[in-house]
């Protein structure tokens, strides 16, 4: 079969802008999680649990989990945007159908959704960073690089999410990737404890293929202002997979919607 490489255009930003407008219509609700979540996690896990943990690899526990909170937030904000929210727009609201009756193509629409997922990751990471800086648990100025990085990481998770959205039969079956992929990743990607305590096979697996493990590595390097092992590997991994999933998800969505 002849496979066409999808060619989204700048029209995608019009789709992005639609989602941006909706987001800021209800900004009070939307900005709640990035400000409240880190406070709760820092207090409960960082300071509460941290008393028993003390330090990990010479780093105070609360400093150790701060970048993980950022990485998890990037993952959740973009992944859930491009699964459940995109699915609702596609299937229930028929927003995509309305859009492709205009000069927008389906490639533009999906690219716009992916860019928006990435932007949401950037917005949440930035808001959370403000809280983490206020708590003094991240180093400056290197932590500011988290802001542009969160867009790239968001694009990666958006692309993966959109692939699931393209193949899911209904909204309920999106629970499979949410619970079998996102939740395990949330716990086993060097977030709350180092990968080195895991069996070697699992370590290799995490470093090799788990997207969140890569994002945690890069984010932690930035907030601690020291490049960790695998920093450049992880960055390259994220950039290349983000590109692959960007085009793959557009291709799969086109296959689903253009019949």
């Amino acid at each position, binding site marked *: 079969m002849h496979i066409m490489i999808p060619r989204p255009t700048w*029209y995608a930003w*019009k789709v992005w*802008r*639609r989602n941006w*407008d*909706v987001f800021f*219509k209800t900004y009070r609700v939307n900005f709640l999680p990035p400000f409240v979540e880190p406070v709760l996690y820092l207090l409960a896990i960082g300071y509460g649990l941290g008393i028993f943990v003390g330090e990990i690899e010479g780093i105070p526990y609360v400093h150790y989990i701060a970048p993980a909170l950022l990485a998890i937030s990037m993952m959740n904000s973009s992944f859930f945007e491009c699964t459940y929210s995109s699915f609702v727009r596609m299937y229930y*609201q*028929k*927003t995509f*159908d*309305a*859009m*492709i*009756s*205009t*000069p*927008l*193509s389906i490639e533009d629409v999906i690219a716009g959704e992916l860019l928006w997922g990435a932007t949401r990751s950037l917005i949440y990471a930035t808001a959370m960073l403000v809280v983490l800086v206020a708590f003094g648990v991240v180093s400056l100025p290197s932590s500011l690089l988290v802001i542009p990085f969160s867009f790239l990481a968001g694009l990666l998770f958006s692309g993966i999410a959109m692939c699931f959205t393209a193949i899911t039969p209904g909204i309920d079956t999106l629970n499979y990737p949410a619970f079998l992929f996102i939740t395990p990743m949330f716990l086993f990607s060097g977030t709350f404890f180092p990968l080195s305590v895991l069996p070697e096979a699992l370590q290799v697996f995490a470093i090799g293929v788990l997207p969140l493990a890569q994002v945690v590595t890069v984010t932690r390097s930035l907030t601690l202002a020291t490049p960790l092992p695998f920093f450049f590997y992880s960055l390259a991994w994220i950039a290349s997979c983000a590109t692959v999933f960007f085009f793959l998800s557009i291709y799969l969505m086109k296959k689903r919607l*253009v*019949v």
Partner: protein
Amino acid sequence: MCGELNRVYCLASPLSHQTVAGAPVVGRGVIYIYGEVEADQRKPGYPSPAHQMVGKNKGAGHLSFTRKKVDFTERVLFRVNNPSITRKGLPVKPIIEGRGLRKEFGTLKAVDGITFSVMPGEVFGFLGPNGAGKTTTMKMIECVAPATSGILTVFGLDVNRDPRRIKRWLGVVPQETNLDPDFTTLENLLVYARYFGIPAAEARQRSEELLSFVQLSEKRDVPIEKLSGGMKRRLILARALVNSPRLLVLDEPTIGLDPQARHLMWEKLKTLQAAGNTIVLTTHYLEEAERLCNRLVIMDHGKILVEGAPGDLVRQYAGEDVIEADYTPRVVRCLEEIGARFEVHGDMVQVFSDRPKEVATRLLSDCNPGRVFVRRGSLEDVFLSLTGRALRD
């Protein structure tokens, strides 16, 4: 087609904007030009945006112009009040042309090799039972669903090669209401205008105008969920007009509307046609098709069964008048004696005849028929006799 309206709409190569200067006009008449010439093609003496130019030809090939403001811009459209000018002069090209158009979903032939053309300024209807292929045809015209085979051009452009340019000039009213529930009434129009790249100030002005056109100005800041079904359909019509389309594609525009809302929708569509728009629509309401359409096709199982003006089709397939009588063996025997064409539907006999009075009198006097009605033939008679009475899914 030209003579029928005594008013002809001619679109001279819609996307290249050739104006009347290049057209050999012969005869006497008035030419109205609505429209805009793209900036790079604008020359002294050519029509400019938002101006109507009225010219009377004083002799062969000579035209003089006066200007008047009009509401509808962005189209180059020649409305020739004297059809003879058009027949001899400007060539009329179809707005939509489909040839051997096919669409298959696996083994299902949704559209099975249809050929049709829609001329500028006409209201063209696609009728047929559920599953006839109407919506699929609309989606192919909207450049949303690719055809399996065949040729389909809109504005003279291939739907596969130039979807973006075609869609720029298309106004679409889908069967399913797909307004954006995250926005208010006005915002729906503004956001949609942005997809077309219409500048914000212009979009705002146009949206307000359109809201008043569909009588929704009072609901401008209301969320979509608070609108009634009729209001939603009207808002969708307004949304379809936001880009000043040259062609409107309406898939069951009055579905689920009450009679008041339906009449308002008809009135709006008539207004749009009078302003020079070409309209393609599908409908299940045959009375609606009879009122609105200049020409229509009746489809079934993906094929076009007949094509023509509603009045002609009624005359041809149902006759001017239809006689209905109670179904009794005696009535049937009588009709067979007269040699009239009839069909039995339930407890009624329908008789198609060009001598309705004669047949009715004969039935009443000789056949003891119970009840007898004579009524005008309608598109519904044509539709049912062509597509049968079996239920569709």
